[in-house]
């Protein structure tokens, strides 16, 4: 799936180079911070686009009934792999603050998708729609703190932009969700 933009691919390459240069024998892996772009169809119907923090990649729809993904987006709706949305043990806390200032994830207080209409991330809670520009602008300072689908690892994520992919005709086809996240692959809840 062409879910990565050139930008995120470059990030990935940079990261690989970086980590290979500074590779040391460390007992606990350092958390990884990345900026990625997820391509989401401009449609309120059809399947979600799934994402895994651990693999830093989109997850195919075939794996939607597994714990391989952490969150998924359809149009402007974000679901979390939990309860009504999936078999995983993911949860989320939405916190106001500066992304870099959040140094660790809370151990409790996570929200789940209890029913299809009572989602952890409420509709409209993370963006402002601008009727002048038709832009979905993510609210600044909204940080999503995730416990991932395996119920063990933690990640913090903030949306940076939601852009329209270039399109011809009246209706956009693709929304480009650009987001930054820090994933802690090891034990513990620290993002430092």
């Amino acid at each position, binding site marked *: 799936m062409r879910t990565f933009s050139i930008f995120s691919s470059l990030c990935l390459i940079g990261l690989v180079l970086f980590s290979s240069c500074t590779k040391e024998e460390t007992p606990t892996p350092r958390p990884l911070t990345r*900026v990625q772009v997820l391509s989401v169809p401009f449609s*309120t119907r059809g399947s979600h686009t799934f994402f895994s923090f651990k693999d830093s990649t989109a997850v195919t729809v075939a794996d939607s009934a597994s714990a391989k993904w952490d969150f998924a987006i359809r149009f402007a709706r974000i679901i979390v792999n939990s309860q009504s949305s999936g078999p995983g043990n993911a949860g989320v806390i939405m916190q106001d603050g500066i992304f870099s200032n959040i140094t660790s994830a809370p151990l409790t207080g996570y929200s789940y998708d209890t029913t*299809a209409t009572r989602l952890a991330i409420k509709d409209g809670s993370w963006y402002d729609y601008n*009727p002048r520009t038709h832009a979905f602008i993510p*609210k600044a300072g909204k940080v999503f703190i995730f416990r991932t689908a395996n119920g063990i690892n933690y990640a913090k994520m903030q949306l*940076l932009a939601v852009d329209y992919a270039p399109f011809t005709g*009246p209706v956009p086809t693709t929304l480009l969700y650009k987001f930054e996240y820090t994933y802690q692959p090891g034990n513990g809840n620290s993002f430092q």
Partner: protein
Amino acid sequence: MTGTVRFFVLWVVAFGTVNATAQQQMLKDTIQGSSEPLVITATRITSKFSRAPVPLIVITDREIRRTGLLRLQDILQEQTGVAITNAPLGNALNGFPNPFGQGVQLMGLDPAYTLILLDGEPLVGRNAGILNTGRIAIGNIRQVEIVKGPSSSLYGSEAMAGVINIITQQPEATSLNVQLFRSSPNISSSSVSFGNKFKHSSLQVFGHQYHSGGFDLDPQLWGKTQDPFRILAGSTKWVYNPTARSQFTFSVRQNNQVQNNRYQVELASSPEIVAGKTIDNDFTAFSQWRLLLGKKSKFFLRSFLNQYSNESWVNKEKTGEPFDAIHFRQQFFKQEMEYQLPFSKGSQLLALAGWASDRVDASRYAQQPPLNSFFVSVQQEWKLLHDRISLNAGGRLDKRNDFAARVSPRIALSWQPDARWKVTASAGGGFKAPDFRHMYLNFSNAQIGYSLIGATALSDELIHLQQNGLLPTGANITPFLQNNPLKPEYGMGWHFRVRYAHQKGTLAIGIFNNRINQMIDLFTLPFSRSNGLPIYSYRNAGNIFSRGAEVEAQLRFSGNFSMNVGYQYLLAKDIGVLESIDAQKLFRRDPETFATTLLTRAQYVGLPNRSRHMGQLKLLYEDSDAGRFAYIRFIYRSAFGWADINGNNVIDDHREMAEGFLLVNLSASQQINRWLSLQGNVENLLNYTNPKYAPHLPGRQVSLSIFLQLKSTSSK
């Protein structure tokens, strides 16, 4: 009829009897007028301009003519503290004709908060809070009065920022005025105004025609920025005095505007051209009986009707198949009686009572009953300390069937220690009733699929949506099924002003502060439609303030030069945003680096569409002996907020703002003989245009006006 015949005989046979004294007197006037105008809007009782207890702008017919402008909004834009702003929603249409038009922003408050009166009576038919001032022909305006500050104590709802009263000519003497106007690129207009005095009555008839070929600011977009339109307007006013004490006034007025719409729509398959018309009809009828009771006291009985309709449709040009059609009709009827006891023994009294009925029938609106209201208003003014101090206090009670009674007070104090100084201080409360849109709108966007539902219509519509399976299962609509009627927005404002008059001119400095509470705003329901798209409705939320300072100066230089300067400094902010900033709950994200930081008070610019600095400079050269003048006006608006781009829904970055602009308008006139004058105008000399931020401004327009003015004094 005899009077009419006599007049025409006069006109044809002997121009020598047509007296031009009055006209020459007018030519001697300076920009504001050396002979002090009489005003009525500030207190509803006729008084001299300098006695008005609240801030007031008067635009005389002479000034209107001198500008050479034919659109009311262009004339209003040249006044201190007045900006013409575009409806935010209209700009979202990406080149489609903006159906909302432009409105008057007064002291930084949105167009919805300024009441627009025609001969003292309120006009209805607002679209998204904006009353299209293009409905008002300017050819027969005698005077425009702008009262700044809450005036609900006299005029009720909407008069929160102030009141604009457009006063048309009174039939006073036999007169005929003709104006012919031709402008580049493609505008022509003519108007005729005729007045005559009979034995016991007098008559004023006015006809007006305006045609615009439209203009296109953005060739990249298919269609014109302004589609071609024409206006036909007519009015007549008849004043009848059966006895010395009794007077009847009847007037009717009709304004008809037809616009040819033609634009491109993006359909699923391919773009297609649609074409059609927008027909805008505005009809008013007014009757008044005035009875002199004692020496000075007067009793008035008035009825007023305003019928406004706007019908718009477009069909696909290829197939003729209907594409879209909407209509909006509003009918407003008011009856009132008023008692005035002008100054006797140092005080004057005004009492007013009446009722009104307001009804809307529109596509996209749920069915609804008419709104009925009644009102009582009382105002008393005292003169103290040998007329040096005047105190004006009053209040009005408004009760409409859908909300609790509201009382709007106002108090105004003016102190004139000597002939030069005048200090005024005024404070008042105002309110704005929820309008039909807030209560009954039922709009679903077909393309994207969201719903916008008025507060009163919400419960029925949610049940309807749920029964039709358009809401997701489990959506809890119960909290929205109780009737939660909207409350009126209300506010308070004060103004303090010092004015110094000198032989050479006047200087006035003022400060003001206005606040609006429980503003009606959109909110998102906690559940969406089953297609995942949000449902919006209206609720009372949010408080704002607008405060600032203003300076106005008139200077008469030696010779024939005079100058008029006006400036307004404005801060208009959302109080909720300031509280969020203080609570460290608002952030900003740089749209390029994506760095997120806390928003500070200093970064927060304020409400969108407001310019911090606005001003105008007018220079007039007038040689009345030679019958000529030249007039140049500079109108400046500094940058104003446009749209959020950095994720906090407030304006706090220069990239979120539209650039400021300067308009330069020129006019010059030469009197040919006693009754004919020619005037040349250049509007927007610098050719400033901005299709995105100021689509209402055409480029440079060069025009020629011909005025024919005949006035008889012998008919008295």
